[in-house]
């Protein structure tokens, strides 16, 4: 079965695959995770806050985004971002943005909805007495949030956040539809250039499997460690 395999094609393209493709994938994953968590936290604070309208807006956004497929959202932002750029900067034509920026904005906006739900679960796991005690001690809202609620909330949901990051890492393959050179895109280009689809796709699957498996195993370890400390 493996007799007519050409594993040499993988060796030849390793540099391209990892230095171009994997670096893109990992940069996108890390950056969108960070900004997604920040935006998600803001959405959650809007949602649980007492200000008028903001809870409804936040809830609508989260539910809306969560009911759309990621591919559709990728297309939306791919076509919309240039127009938004034009509107913001006042240029006369739609601003062309690179695929990385477009993908980055997409994943930030999309994953923020998912991160928001996770952070909300974390904040709701904190007993009401904690912020109440904080206010009683004379802390203001931002101090209560920053020093009491959020640190504990993040600690409680850290494993879930990291699991969602692994999902995000796998989801970044979908930038393929913009023909971006992420890890899958790079492999895809080599595969079609050299007509070695079987080898390349199997290789890609193994690499994704290895990274995701190791990452989710580490999350499991971390989870039990956190559980013991508590």
């Amino acid at each position, binding site marked *: *079965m493996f007799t007519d395999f050409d594993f040499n094609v993988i060796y030849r393209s390793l540099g391209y695959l990892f230095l171009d493709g994997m670096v893109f994938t990992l940069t996108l994953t890390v950056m969108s995770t960070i900004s997604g968590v920040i935006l998600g936290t803001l959405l959650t604070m809007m949602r649980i806050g007492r200000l008028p309208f903001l809870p409804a807006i936040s809830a609508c956004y989260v539910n*809306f985004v969560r*009911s*759309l*497929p*990621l*591919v*559709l959202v990728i*297309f*939306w932002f*791919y*076509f*919309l971002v*240039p*127009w938004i750029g*034009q*509107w913001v900067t*006042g*240029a*006369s*034509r*739609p601003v*062309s943005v690179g695929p990385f920026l477009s993908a980055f904005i997409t994943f930030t906006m999309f994953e923020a909805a998912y991160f928001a739900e996770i952070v909300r679960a974390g904040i709701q796991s904190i007993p009401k007495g904690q912020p109440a005690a904080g206010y009683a001690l004379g802390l203001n809202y931002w101090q209560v949030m920053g020093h009491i609620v959020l640190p504990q909330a993040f600690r409680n949901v850290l494993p879930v956040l990291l699991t969602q990051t692994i999902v995000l890492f*796998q*989801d970044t*393959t*979908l930038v*393929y*539809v*913009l*023909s971006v050179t992420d890890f*899958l895109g790079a492999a*895809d280009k080599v595969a*079609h250039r050299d*007509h070695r*689809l*079987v080898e390349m*796709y*199997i290789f*890609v*699957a193994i690499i*994704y*499997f290895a990274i*995701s*498996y190791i990452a*989710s195993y580490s999350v499991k370890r971390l989870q039990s460690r956190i559980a013991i400390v508590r």
Partner: protein
Amino acid sequence: MLSRGDAAMHRLPIRCVSRRKPERENTSNLDATRGAAGFLLRLRPTRKTRMNYNWNWRIFWQESPNGVETYLDLLISGLQWTIFVAICSWIIALTIGSFIGVMRTTKSRFWNVFGQAYVELFRNIPLLVQMFLWYFVVPELLPSAIGTWIKQLPNSSAYTAILCLGLFTSARIAEQVRAGIQSLPSGQRMASLALGLTSRQSYRHILLPIAYRIMLPPLTSEFLNNFKNTSVTFAIGVMELMAQTRSMSEFSFQVFEALTAATILYLTVNLIVVMIARQLERKLAVPGFMTSH
């Protein structure tokens, strides 16, 4: 087989972004300020920087390049494929997922390890990569007669997509089933065994019926995930809603109308599924086992 249908789609974005139709500028600007999305235009900060995108909501009733159907018909046929793929793959997923989930709650070490390996395998490879594996790689690895037969099947990409999506979702359902069964009080299993039921009977008549009801909310969200994941199948050429949206925006250049329509259709189906699930939950609730609504 190797010439994928998306060669054309790679060209699309560049064209669509910069495309302008000067000859229709005036009338279409009127259209746009009137249309439902005209608010985008009214937000413009100065007159100079108006959005020069030409809204045309009547595009849906115009004839598509195939000369028979309108663009709306195309989208509807895409939606039908989406629903077809979603339901077929859901049946596969629920069946296999239940078996794997049950396996992981039995005492047999072999089946436990097998179930775990199955779940890890399908969970740790991105769906798109799995699609490519099933579509491009598996037919090559099979004996060539079977491989050729698969490639020549009509709608072979749709069947591949159903299989792939079904197996992908089955791993996730297996985890839900396992969690559902394990959340039952252990007295249930003991009591059923003490009454003389075989292990199989206790799963069939006692454990699974209750577990499925407890699992209904997570199963609903898995169904919606599965439904959303059908949009990935357009990468291997299934003409479902996402693919039809793309081809509509490619042929008509009305990108935002096409995307809006797709968004509304996805939202509608989502809403319907959620409402049906709520009805089901209310109907199937076991008093005392779940928080009643």
